[in-house]
């Protein structure tokens, strides 16, 4: 078909744009001459997002995908000439072939390019992004351009004036996204030379995530030695990420050329480099100190590799590798994840083979999810007359609303209406924990992203256009508050504060051997559920009935009914499945659903609201960032006698669930430790940032990090391993917690011991010590962390659930319950429960959705309590039905299920039953500071080992072993899925994920290109999960335990392992004792904390000479994530490319 494609150019003419696809080079040049400003688009990985997110508009787009000249590849003995239209995947395959074909010494540049190509974008991007596009987009962080430039590559360019060759060098890159090319010039190809005798090239990059992330600093370095010596003949160094474009270190190179490559020369080069590559403190993207350190340490890496080369060639006998070692060759980071073990538990000996409980059943809709047939909220077909809703949000952090002018918006074609607070017929606010929160801002906005009004239109694009022209008049209110420090200063809190104390802390401090005070900050975490907030509200047009289809953890018919001022029995909520929630789809979904319902109510038409990723990240909040301070008193033997902890949680502009979060923080601050005198205080700080909400763990991951950090500090003070301190202080026997709840820590200790044993802790601890002695720039660290996590809602009334089970005449069974399926496998487990109780195969049982008409008054699927509660409710209903069938079974003992059901129907026995579970009566009395807030504890322990590259802060988790006590698992494969998933999410929280705000409270990180969640490259190389055997739990269904949230905290084992490795690096710099490392331990924080000679050099450079003599213990920037100076221009940087000249 394609071979016989007629070679005529194509023209697609839209209302606002024209798309031209020429077939010959002449035609392309002609087009470019007449439309010099028209971009060339191939993969659309650059222009596309520009149009979508930055509002760029091009009347003409030229797509030269069919111009054969742009895809030509010519191999010559001098090098290879690659057509500019070749995709990065094609280039990669081509270079891989060349590296195999031609002698190794000729492929230095090719191998450097391959090194960069392996991490640039993802496969999908590389398949369409082109090499020419990458060059001419001239992004400052381009990974390829420094290599092309350092490698003396040449561009072939054509225009009406003819063809010419342009050397890719510092003169080519003239500014942000700008090159020296004229607008009408078209890049035909790029020539990459083979390397010559004595020429070596390397490429390095450091990015927030190893793969598919824009580089922080990236570099190409090429050196050529004079034949038979170590004298430098040519040197070329280019950096990306340290200026508005790819920059050359020309002066540094000039200073080295003509001299011998040795330590003396290089040490001068570092100083020169520091002078030459200067970054202003307001550099777009921030991280100035880190970037500057990287420019030095990457050159040092190059130096190490070149010294090794020279040593191999025996050119300079003076080169020795005493301290340096050959470690640059030990690339232990690379490699696929290796082996994985996980152990399920045995089911009981006499369990019937048909009973699925305790067996690793596949998620019940996994197959339809894998075929794309699974229906998510936005997959519901468009209804007749359906409208789309787009929210208009505040652009001011704190301001009075003067007026909302919607007149222009209403003129936009397709726009039907604009919904403001005035349109809400019922309650205009929602009340959480006694504090009111406007559904739509009425008089005042209190954060950037505060919802003010909503535009409904026939299509989503029309609604977006309408939303863009809604004019809101603001009067800024003074002194917006963003950080917890500011909130403390201004006493901006949501009350009440909470306090809990056992023993007498103040007195105990007088009797201890040592006292240490420290602090740690923990950044927030975006939920990043893959499916953004989605809902469709359909008014039935009769008797004020409303059907609401939504993606949420808590079907919120009652808030919708209150908002509309109608009875709850008119609103039915339907949740088929949720594409990830993690706590972010409880209260936030409820508010947006209320707004959407008002729109449907007012217009009388179905309204759909699906947030875009950027909107979702901006509006719906995240995990609470926390500042934790500790004062700890301990004895010489490591026993902690007293601890005083303060927690300040950044709640954002509304209370939401923050007051419950700070309570849970205090209830978990002991983690696994018995501290006789323990006091905790927590407060929710009211700031002008988007309101934070529940997130898997609900304060516990923040709370326990502070506790474990305190333990770590004690260990560092005493100079021993933190694990020893943990063991000394752990609960040993039946004990009372600080809220006077009695429990038996037997299984906690079993998890701990088993974890140490399975992870071969002692042996590996020794070999890590050895490794760290032998390696200067790579350090390993290890940490073992225990957890004791309380399950169930401490607000006791939420511990209830109901179910409805129907048996149909053909024997099939329909189960409804109040839990929502968000990937955690609750429907699968409910199917297992029903199958056991009814004694029928799971295949006869169906669960279609969570529907509030079937099961009303649902509680949220949260607190790791979904299966506990709903499982019991389903069990109850099934037991009732099974008993009802007892007579028919007795009449016909030989019968089958179908026969019994049929006879029951004929004998007029009801085949439907509701089930109900009245859960634990839990409570917490904050006046008396005691209570029973949890039904039971889930225990676990986790040991992780990491390897840190001290020069760049890069790390890789080498191995993780987790032992969890989850009672008798109902479905071990589903539970292991929760364990692994939560662990990786925790690893993200503590080591990667960083929300960045502007100084005026604008969230920058609004998509996967700016906010990095763990990817395949981040999982531990070896990952073992063990379920503790022989554990029972009388408090939950079939002796199981809740497992949704607890393991997230165990991701902190990676954080503390990094801290352990950093400590080893600091020892080399002569620094011992406690130090601050805030969470997340990003490469930036890790690298700076390692305190290598390069980071020291950069610091000295910024400091007056007098203060440089002593290495100062560092305290990291109080809140770098808040104040990182980012330039909006950079906030939409894509490492994605396309052909654009």
């Amino acid at each position, binding site marked *: 078909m394609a071979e016989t494609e007629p070679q005529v150019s194509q023209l697609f003419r839209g209302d606002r744009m024209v798309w031209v*696809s020429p077939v010959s080079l002449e035609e392309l040049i002609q087009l470019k001459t007449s439309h010099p400003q028209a971009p060339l688009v191939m993969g659309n990985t650059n222009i596309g997002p520009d149009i979508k997110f930055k509002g760029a508009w091009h009347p003409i787009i030229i797509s030269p995908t069919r111009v054969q000249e742009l895809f030509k590849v010519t191999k010559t003995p001098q090098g290879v000439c690659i057509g500019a239209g070749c995709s990065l995947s094609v280039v990669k395959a081509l270079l891989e072939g060349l590296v195999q074909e031609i002698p190794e010494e000729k492929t230095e540049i090719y191998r450097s390019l391959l090194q960069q190509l392996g991490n640039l974008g993802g496969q999908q991007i590389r398949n369409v992004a082109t090499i020419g596009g990458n060059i001419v987009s001239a992004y400052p962080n381009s990974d390829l351009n420094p290599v092309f430039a350092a490698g003396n590559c040449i561009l072939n360019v054509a225009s009406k004036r003819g063809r010419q060759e342009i050397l890719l060098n510092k003169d080519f890159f003239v500014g942000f996204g700008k090159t020296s090319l004229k607008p009408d010039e078209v890049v035909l190809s790029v020539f990459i030379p083979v390397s010559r005798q004595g020429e070596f090239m390397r490429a390095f990059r450091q990015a927030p995530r190893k793969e598919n992330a824009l580089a922080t600093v990236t570099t190409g370095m090429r050196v050529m030695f004079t034949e038979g010596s170590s004298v430098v003949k040519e040197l070329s160094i280019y950096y990306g990420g340290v200026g508005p474009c790819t920059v050359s270190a020309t002066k540094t190179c000039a200073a080295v050329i003509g001299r011998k490559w040795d330590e003396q020369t290089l040490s001068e080069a570092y100083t020169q480099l520091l002078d030459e590559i200067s970054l202003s403190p307001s550099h777009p993207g921030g991280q100035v100190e880190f970037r500057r350190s990287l420019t030095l340490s990457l050159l040092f890496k190059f130096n190490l590799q070149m010294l090794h080369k020279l040593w191999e060639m025996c050119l300079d006998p003076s080169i020795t590798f005493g301290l340096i070692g050959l470690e640059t060759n030990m690339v232990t980071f690379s490699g696929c*994840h290796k082996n994985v073990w996980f152990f399920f538990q045995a089911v009981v000996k006499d369990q019937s083979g048909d009973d699925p409980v305790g*067996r690793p059943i*596949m998620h019940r809709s996994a197959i339809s999810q894998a*075929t794309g047939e699974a229906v998510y909220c936005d997959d519901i077909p468009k209804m007749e007359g359906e409208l789309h809703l787009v929210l208009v949000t505040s652009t001011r952090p704190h301001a009075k609303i003067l007026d909302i002018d919607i007149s222009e918006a209403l003129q936009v074609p397709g726009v039907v209406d604009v919904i403001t607070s005035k349109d809400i017929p019922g309650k205009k606010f929602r009340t959480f924990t006694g504090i009111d929160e406007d559904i739509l801002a009425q008089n005042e906005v209190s954060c950037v992203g505060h919802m003010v009004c909503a535009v409904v239109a026939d299509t989503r694009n029309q609604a977006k256009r309408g939303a863009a022209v809604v004019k809101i008049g603001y009067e800024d209110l003074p002194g917006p508050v963003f950080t917890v420090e500011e909130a403390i200063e201004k006493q901006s809190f949501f009350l009440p504060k909470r306090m809990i104390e056992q023993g007498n802390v103040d007195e105990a401090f007088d009797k201890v051997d040592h006292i240490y005070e420290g602090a740690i900050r923990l950044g927030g975490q975006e939920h990043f559920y893959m499916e953004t907030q989605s809902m469709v509200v359909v008014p039935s047009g009769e008797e004020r009935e409303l059907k609401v289809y939504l993606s949420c953890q808590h079907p919120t018919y009652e808030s919708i009914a209150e908002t509309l001022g109608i009875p709850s029995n008119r609103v039915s909520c339907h949740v088929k499945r949720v594409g990830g929630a993690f706590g972010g789809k409880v209260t936030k979904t409820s508010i947006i659903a209320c707004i959407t319902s008002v729109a449907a109510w007012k217009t009388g038409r179905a309204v759909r609201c699906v947030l875009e990723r950027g909107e979702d990240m901006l509006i719906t909040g995240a995990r609470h960032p926390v500042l934790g301070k500790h004062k700890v008193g301990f004895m010489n033997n490591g026993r902690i006698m007293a601890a005083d902890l303060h927690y300040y949680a950044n709640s954002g502009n509304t209370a939401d669930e923050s007051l419950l979060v700070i309570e849970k923080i205090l209830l978990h601050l002991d983690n696994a430790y018995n501290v006789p005198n323990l006091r905790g205080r927590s407060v929710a700080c009211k700031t002008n940032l988007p309101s934070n909400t529940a997130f898997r763990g609900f304060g516990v991951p923040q709370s326990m990090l502070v506790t474990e950090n305190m333990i770590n500090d004690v260990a560092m003070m005493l100079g021993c391993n933190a694990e020893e301190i943990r063991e000394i202080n752990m609960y040993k026997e039946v004990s009372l917690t600080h809220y006077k709840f009695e429990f038996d820590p037997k299984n906690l200790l079993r998890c701990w011991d088993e974890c140490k044993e399975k992870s071969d802790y002692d042996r590996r601890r020794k070999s890590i010590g050895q490794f760290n002695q032998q390696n200067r720039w790579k350090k390993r660290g290890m940490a073992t962390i225990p957890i004791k996590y309380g399950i169930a809602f401490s607000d006791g009334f939420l511990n209830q659930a109901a179910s409805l089970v129907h048996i149909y005449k053909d024997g099939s069974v329909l189960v409804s319950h109040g839990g929502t399926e968000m990937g955690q496998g609750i429907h699968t487990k409910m199917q297992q429960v029903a199958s056991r109780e009814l004694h029928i195969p799971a295949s006869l049982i169906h669960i279609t959705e969570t529907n509030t008409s079937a099961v009303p008054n649902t509680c949220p699927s949260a607190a790791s309590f979904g299966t506990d509660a709903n499982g019991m409710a389903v069990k109850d209903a099934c037991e009732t039905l099974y008993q009802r069938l007892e007579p028919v079974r007795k009449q016909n003992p030989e019968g089958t299920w179908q026969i019994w059901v049929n006879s029951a129907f004929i004998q007029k026995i009801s085949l439907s039953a509701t089930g109900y579970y009245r859960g634990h009566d839990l409570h917490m009395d904050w006046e008396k500071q005691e209570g029973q807030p949890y039904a039971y504890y889930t225990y676990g322990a986790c040991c992780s080992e990491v390897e840190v590259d001290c020069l760049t802060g890069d790390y890789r988790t080498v191995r993780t072993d987790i032992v969890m006590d989850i009672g008798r698992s109902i479905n071990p494969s589903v539970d292991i899925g929760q364990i692994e998933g939560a662990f990786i999410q925790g690893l993200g929280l503590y080591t990667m994920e960083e929300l960045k705000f502007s100084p005026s409270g604008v969230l920058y990180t609004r998509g996967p290109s700016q906010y990095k969640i763990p990817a395949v490259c981040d999982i531990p190389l070896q990952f073992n999960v063990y379920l503790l055997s022989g554990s029972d739990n009388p408090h939950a269904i079939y002796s199981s335990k809740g497992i949704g949230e607890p393991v997230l905290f165990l991701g902190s084992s990676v954080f503390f392992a990094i801290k352990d490795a950093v400590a080893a690096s600091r020892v080399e710099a002569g620094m011992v004792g406690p130090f601050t490392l805030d969470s997340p331990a990003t490469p930036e924080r890790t690298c700076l904390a390692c305190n290598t000679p390069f980071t020291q050099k950069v610091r000295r450079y910024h400091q007056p000479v007098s203060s440089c003599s002593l290495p100062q213990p560092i305290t990291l920037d109080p809140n770098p994530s808040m104040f990182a100076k980012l330039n909006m221009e950079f906030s939409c940087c894509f490492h994605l490319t396309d052909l654009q000249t």
Partner: protein
Amino acid sequence: MTRTTPGSTHCFQHNSWVKSLFPVQLLGQLIVSMGLTGTKLGCAEGGCGACTVMLSKYQPHLRRVHHSVNGCLAPLCSLHHCAVTTVEGIGSVAGKLHPVQERIAKSHGSQCGFCTPGIVMSMYALLRNNPTPRMADIEEAFQGNLCRCTGYRPILEGYKTFTKLLVCWLYWSCWSDGFTGAVGLLALLELLV
């Protein structure tokens, strides 16, 4: 616009529809106009891979015909004479499952399932080009796919079964009374790396 269905792929032929929708990305076309909702919208910037589909195009100068792309970025206009294969096109519950779909499900590699179609299509495109990939090829194929639920391990384990060296494949959903799920045998897979 006409939609023909030869086998499992959809062929696009342009027509006057372009005008009203222009500029439109492939994903919008699939979901809105064709009702093919299997391909998911995650971020609209090519960063999460939920919208991955396979494009097939014969280009004389390239050896490879098939490649994975982000549907949220691919402009419809650029797809002249391309075949697009979506997750619906390779298997279905009622029809026959593709092994790529079956194995991710059976290895517990799909929890909330929103990223699953994209991961399936990344793997499918890889196998079309390389029927016996190495583990490193699989990991490379997933560089552009994010999953927030599983932690990736079960996905990789499931797809390890496509690699060259694997001789034995055991579903760990095997039912036994003693040591359930003979997963320990997966340690054999260490040989692969």
